């Protein structure tokens, strides 16, 4: 081991285990460690993005507030959006995919372990690059400046004339770099799933989580790359004097919107499909029933992926497209509701008649089902282009997509944390703190985002710095901000739970939930090689077969 040599040379014999450990984490190519690194770095950025959200909410608490300056406010919402999407949601989901996919298909690692490490460090350093803009955004003279042009960076705001200094460059480069990281991970996930399945693991026997991550990775290849291409064009505009998005030379600001949303909307599904995957694993286990409608779930996922590639311009109904385009994108957007509805019915079908155990993962899953449904319903409302003309760029939209991302994605992620934490650390998360976390977060969430719809309908635009009193927005905004603080409190409970349970949690054993997929057949945490002997499977629930040799699933498939 080279690390031994290095530490011995320095002569730090006492600190050696610590240095060794650190070196092993930094130089690791193990999919489980990289998964945890992804998740850990995402939690770090979650805390930062959360603080930015709180600053936004304090500023909007009452009318004519000046808690921060307008410039800082612009930076806050830009950084909040960019951080949460690119450096929290994506890495955390990649982290789970990295950790779980090889375990679930009975493989010893990802297909390309070094590419895996490379992709992680690209994403993570991309995040650090974005935050370095606070120091270096104006080129290191005086105070820096973070990007402040919104997370869409609409043209011409991103152009040199309107975004002087380097703040937009940090944004562009951070997204380009982390985008390459995402592409690497997506290629890796696809290759792993297609080439490294254990004997007997046919495509139609893969756990749904694996299926959905396969679809997600395919979408990443097609969705992230347009953004990368657009970022390259923006760099050409900013540095080589190109005219892609320069309207004065005949360029088009609308083209940037198209390119951004060709990425932007599939991105939503890149984020939500792994969450569907968590649901499809967790709900059956806590309902004590196999998933209802496995083939339909797979078909619905592929269908969502396919349709979601042709809905992007529903973000652009207000820019003045012709009526054919408006009708087309209204139609496609509504069509997405069909496979999504199928999924919700399948999950309810799984719960129906089951012996439901209301452990914390299940609580979060039920929260997900309910909230994701409502988020979908407001989505259908805004898919109707005339309705969208009224409410686009208002707080109604902000409430809608936070309902998807917080009420859907974040709830599913919390469920996943409570469900797989025992596998990752060998210790259970505290149920007691888990219940506190769930109820506090649920109350905070509904206070914030249910109420947030109303000022939107009353006409409050998004990204507004402050507002006049007497428009009927004050009380509502105050309630929204209170809710935000309750959510922050719940997150603190969650983080405390993660740390306390790591040291004092009940030992989990291999299979604390009596589950059915392969990751529970190995020890918790799994050894570096995952499985001592590569398992062979004969059905969709290999561990059920193992526990019930008298009545195996393989008899019915």
């Amino acid at each position, binding site marked *: 081991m080279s690390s031994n040599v290095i530490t011995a040379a320095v002569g730090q014999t006492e600190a050696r285990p610590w240095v060794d450990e650190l070196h092993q984490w930094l130089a690791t190519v193990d999919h489980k460690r990289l998964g945890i690194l992804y998740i850990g770095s995402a939690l770090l950025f979650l805390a930062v993005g959360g603080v930015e959200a709180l600053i936004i909410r304090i500023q909007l608490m009452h009318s004519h507030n000046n808690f921060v300056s307008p410039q800082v406010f612009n930076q806050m919402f830009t950084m909040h959006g960019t951080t949460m999407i690119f450096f929290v949601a994506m890495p955390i989901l990649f982290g789970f995919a990295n950790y779980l996919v090889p375990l679930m298909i009975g493989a010893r690692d990802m297909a390309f372990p070094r590419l895996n490490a490379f992709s992680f460090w690209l994403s993570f350093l991309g995040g650090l690059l974005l935050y370095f803009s606070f120091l270096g955004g104006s080129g290191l003279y005086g105070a820096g400046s973070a990007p402040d042009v919104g997370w869409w960076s609409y043209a011409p705001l991103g152009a040199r004339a309107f975004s002087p200094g380097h703040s937009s460059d940090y944004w562009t480069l951070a997204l380009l770099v982390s985008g390459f990281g995402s592409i690497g991970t997506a290629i890796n996930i696809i290759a792993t799933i297609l080439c490294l399945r254990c004997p007997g693991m046919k495509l139609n026997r893969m756990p749904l989580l694996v299926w959905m991550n396969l679809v997600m990775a395919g979408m990443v290849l097609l969705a992230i790359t347009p953004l990368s291409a657009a970022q390259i064009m923006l760099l050409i505009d900013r540095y080589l004097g190109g005219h892609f998005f320069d309207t004065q*030379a005949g360029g088009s600001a609308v083209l940037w919107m198209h390119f951004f949303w060709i990425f932007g909307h599939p991105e939503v599904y890149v984020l939500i499909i792994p969450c569907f995957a968590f649901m499809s694993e967790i709900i059956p286990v806590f309902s004590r029933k196999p998933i209802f409608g496995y083939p339909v779930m797979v078909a619905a996922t592929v269908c969502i992926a396919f349709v979601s590639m042709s809905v992007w311009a529903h973000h652009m109904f207000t820019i003045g497209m012709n009526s054919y385009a408006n009708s087309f994108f209204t139609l496609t957007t509504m069509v997405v509701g069909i496979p999504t509805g199928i999924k919700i019915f399948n999950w309810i079908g799984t719960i129906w008649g089951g012996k439901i155990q209301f452990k914390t993962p299940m609580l979060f899953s039920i929260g997900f089902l309910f909230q994701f449904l409502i988020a979908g319903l407001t989505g259908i409302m805004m898919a109707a282009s005339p309705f969208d003309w009224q409410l686009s760029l208002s707080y109604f939209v902000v409430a809608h997509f936070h309902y998807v991302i917080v009420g859907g994605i974040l709830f599913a992620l919390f469920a996943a944390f409570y469900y797989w934490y025992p596998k990752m650390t060998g210790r259970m998360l505290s149920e007691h703190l888990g219940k506190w976390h769930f109820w506090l977060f649920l109350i905070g969430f509904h206070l914030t985002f249910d109420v947030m719809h109303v000022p939107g309908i009353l006409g409050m635009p998004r990204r507004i710095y402050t507002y006049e009193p007497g428009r009927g927005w004050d009380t509502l905004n105050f309630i929204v901000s209170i809710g935000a603080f309750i959510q922050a409190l719940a997150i603190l409970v969650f983080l405390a739970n993660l740390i306390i349970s790591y040291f004092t949690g009940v030992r989990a054993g291999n299979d604390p939930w009596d589950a059915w997929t392969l990751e529970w057949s190995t020890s918790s945490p799994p050894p570096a090689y995952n499985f001592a002997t590569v398992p062979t499977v004969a059905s969709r629930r290999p561990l059920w077969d193992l526990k019930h040799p008298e009545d195996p699933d393989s008899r019915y498939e």
Partner: protein
Amino acid sequence: MAGLIIAESAIFTIFVVAYLFYLGKSITGPTPREVLATPIFYTICLLSSSLTIHFAAKALERDYTRLFLGLWLLTIAMGGLFLFGTAEEWHRLIYEHGLTISTNLFGTTYYSLVGLHAFHVTAGLIMLSLVAIFGFAGEVRASQSGRVAVLSMYWHFVDAVWVVVFTVVYVLGR
């Protein structure tokens, strides 16, 4: 590699769309019709390099190492010739016609699309040359034919993209 090719195709698609979208939208000259000449010879070079690399990979599978090296070098030579053709064209455009990336929309889209492709050719040539160096060191044998096949897949992709770029820039674009 198939995954990478899908991702790369999406990137090229965006640049091609931008090129087509901005066709004829330039406010000032020069226009494609005035300045572009169809690079037929260099196109033939690039496209036939696809053939040579294919036969090189086949030769390696059967362990004909010398034949492999010969065809491989021929591929590199033709790829290099193509790159020279692009450089010559750019030199002519810049110094005779005064068309740079910031002149007008045509310049912006032309240089970025063709440049993106040339960048991929360059990356491919570097990888091909690495294999050639290892080949001369006697390290490339039939056991490596899988890896060489992956690289040749990339090269085919670069050639296929040129067919699209050629059609868009030199046929439709004029």
